[in-house]
């Protein structure tokens, strides 16, 4: 008994001392980082990326980290005035871990943030970045809650309302008389956000939504009930605002049932064609809104896809492209504002906030991207249709 207590006490003491040691050892480390930056000959801006590198959503965070790294490597290799140093941290798609990871990046001297990747964490981190005055550019967190009321938070991707509205407008215009069924993920902020604006805009456009159903992360294996119900309701178009892993199951199960409506996805659907082992014939005729297509003809996209494949052995998805663009957007903004790498994060933030609305950047995910002061990007969502395993413009 006594021994146990003693052990507990020792551990407790060790903890307190450990915490203290952590604290005191970290601060000098951060200071050293600062001084070495000033003394080094090449001044590099320190940027950080945030996203889930482990867990069920790791694919998105890894894509962001990889895409940003490629852009940084390119910029550094070209050797201009602006050089970057990049650090990627894992947030396991959890707001708490994301704030922790953000703080770690700040401890390590980060000056600008490219991230977080997913919506929930981005909402939490954007509030902290706003208080800290750290410039934040999220490649892929699409909710308006991320940017609302925060002048220093910007997005590379479309906002959820933008996508939902665009999808409804597109359907109303090109698929007149469609009977639409919606299946969305009821425990995902991203999916629900798009669904809400889609249905609202469908009401305005007179688009008929005949059936709506949901699923959750925990029931995302079997979709046959939802598909049967949608079929019974007479739906000839199925709107699927969620990610491609689940979408591939929907396509598989619809095919097994012999139900063949027009499937319509949003940017989360991108990646379905490159999913390992996926029978792309199932995706024939699927329509989706995407800002990026890995088999686009232009040279920049092709170089990017090639480099990505060489380095990471997979075909990049739109998250990687968004992150790649994010780094180039930062570069453009830094050039326009005349920031130097020895400035503090807060100083850089104020300058960048000023120049962002004046920028127009060409990237992989859109040409002539511009921003308003709210932080939302303006670029046209591109509707594509899958034919013979590639995206084509309808």
């Amino acid at each position: 008994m006594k021994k146990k207590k003693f052990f507990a006490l020792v551990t407790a003491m060790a903890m307190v001392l450990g915490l203290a040691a952590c604290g005191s050892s970290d601060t000098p480390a951060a200071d050293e980082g600062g001084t070495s930056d000033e003394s080094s000959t090449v001044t590099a801006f320190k940027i950080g990326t945030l996203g889930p590198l482990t867990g069920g959503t790791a694919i998105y965070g890894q894509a962001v980290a990889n895409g940003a790294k490629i852009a940084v490597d390119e910029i550094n290799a070209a050797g201009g005035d602006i050089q970057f140093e990049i650090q990627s941290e894992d947030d396991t798609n959890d707001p708490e871990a994301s704030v922790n990871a953000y703080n770690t990046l700040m401890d390590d001297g980060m000056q600008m943030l490219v991230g977080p990747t997913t919506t929930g964490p981005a909402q939490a981190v954007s509030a902290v970045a706003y208080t800290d005055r750290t410039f934040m550019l999220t490649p892929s967190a699409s909710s308006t809650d991320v940017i609302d009321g925060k002048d220093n938070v910007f997005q590379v991707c479309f906002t959820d309302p933008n996508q939902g509205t665009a999808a409804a407008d597109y359907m109303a215009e090109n698929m007149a008389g469609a009977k639409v069924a919606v299946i969305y993920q009821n425990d995902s902020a991203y999916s629900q956000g798009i669904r809400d604006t889609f249905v609202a805009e469908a009401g305005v456009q007179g688009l008929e939504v005949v059936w709506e159903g949901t699923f959750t992360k925990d029931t995302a294996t079997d979709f046959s009930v939802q598909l049967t119900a949608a079929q019974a309701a007479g739906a000839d178009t199925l709107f699927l605002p969620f990610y491609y892993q689940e979408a591939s199951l929907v396509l598989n199960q619809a095919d097994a049932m012999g139900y063949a409506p027009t499937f319509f996805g949003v940017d989360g659907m991108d990646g379905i064609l490159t999913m390992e082992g996926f029978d792309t014939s199932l995706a024939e005729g699927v329509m989706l809104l995407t800002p990026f297509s890995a088999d686009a003809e232009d040279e920049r996209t092709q170089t990017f896809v090639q480099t990505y494949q060489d380095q990471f052995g997979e075909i990049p998805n739109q998250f990687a492209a968004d992150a790649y663009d994010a780094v180039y957007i930062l570069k453009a903004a830094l050039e326009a504002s005349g920031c130097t790498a020895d400035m503090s994060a807060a100083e850089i933030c104020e300058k960048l906030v000023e120049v962002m609305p004046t920028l127009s950047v060409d990237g992989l995910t859109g040409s002539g991207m511009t921003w308003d002061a709210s932080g939302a990007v303006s670029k046209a969502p591109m509707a594509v249709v899958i034919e013979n395993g590639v995206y084509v413009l309808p």
Partner: protein
Amino acid sequence: MEFLSYLISGVSLGSVYAIIALGYTMVYGIAKMLNFAHGDVIMVGGYISFCAISYLGLPSIVAVLLAMLVCTVLGVVIEGLAYRPLRSAPSLAVLITAIGVSYLLQNAALLLWGAGGKSYPSVVSGALQLFGGQLSISYASILTVAVCLVIMAALSAFISGSKLGKAMRACSEDKGAAQLMGINVNATISLTFAIGSALAAVAGVLLCSSYPTLMPTTGSMPGIKAFTAAVFGGIGSIPGAFLGGLLLGIIEALAKAYISTSLANSIVFAVLIVVLLVRPAGLLGKYVPEKV
């Protein structure tokens, strides 16, 4: 007709839960521990067979056998390294270790096979069409139910009939007394894990054949559902696991169809709670009243 179609969806889903629950319930029945890593062994089985089919081009039956082999070894190794040292420890300590093993397998799979989902090549494709195509039952589901029944019969016969099965039951009753009777308790429990993990490999292949998206987290939710199914049917009871799994799948499908797609899981769990209140040891479990 729609009702029948929902019912079929439920049976397909339920048969997958059932086959996972069989492994769960066997390990629980003998070793008296909740092996939370069981779902992740299923995921490993899925990946092994995926690699065997897609990368090595092996025929599916060989792939299944390979997956069974790897999972059996994995199960025995996990048991030997992580669970055996804790045989005398409180059951909660073993539970936490099992959770640690579950995290370990998931993260190892993430590093080995990457985070992207993989679409599983169907081992059995196609569907049986009834009533001129109005109803369709996929062959994968039929196979799953058949395999379930075979495994259930074989396991019941093995445990009640064979000498090793008797040793298992003895260990489950009283480890100390079993040892005194000359039964090698450690070897018996290792054998239990070996069989349980081989079943997990089969379950992995069938799970992925019916629901073909494979990710490092693929096993965790079906694992929890199968645990629920095992409790539902009476944990430790082999026919109970089958019945529990099937009912769970059917309730989930009907709840989605007629009540709410968002609350399907909640409804399943609510039914479970009601069942346990009426029958505190599950549908087919034996209720052992506590004695002084």
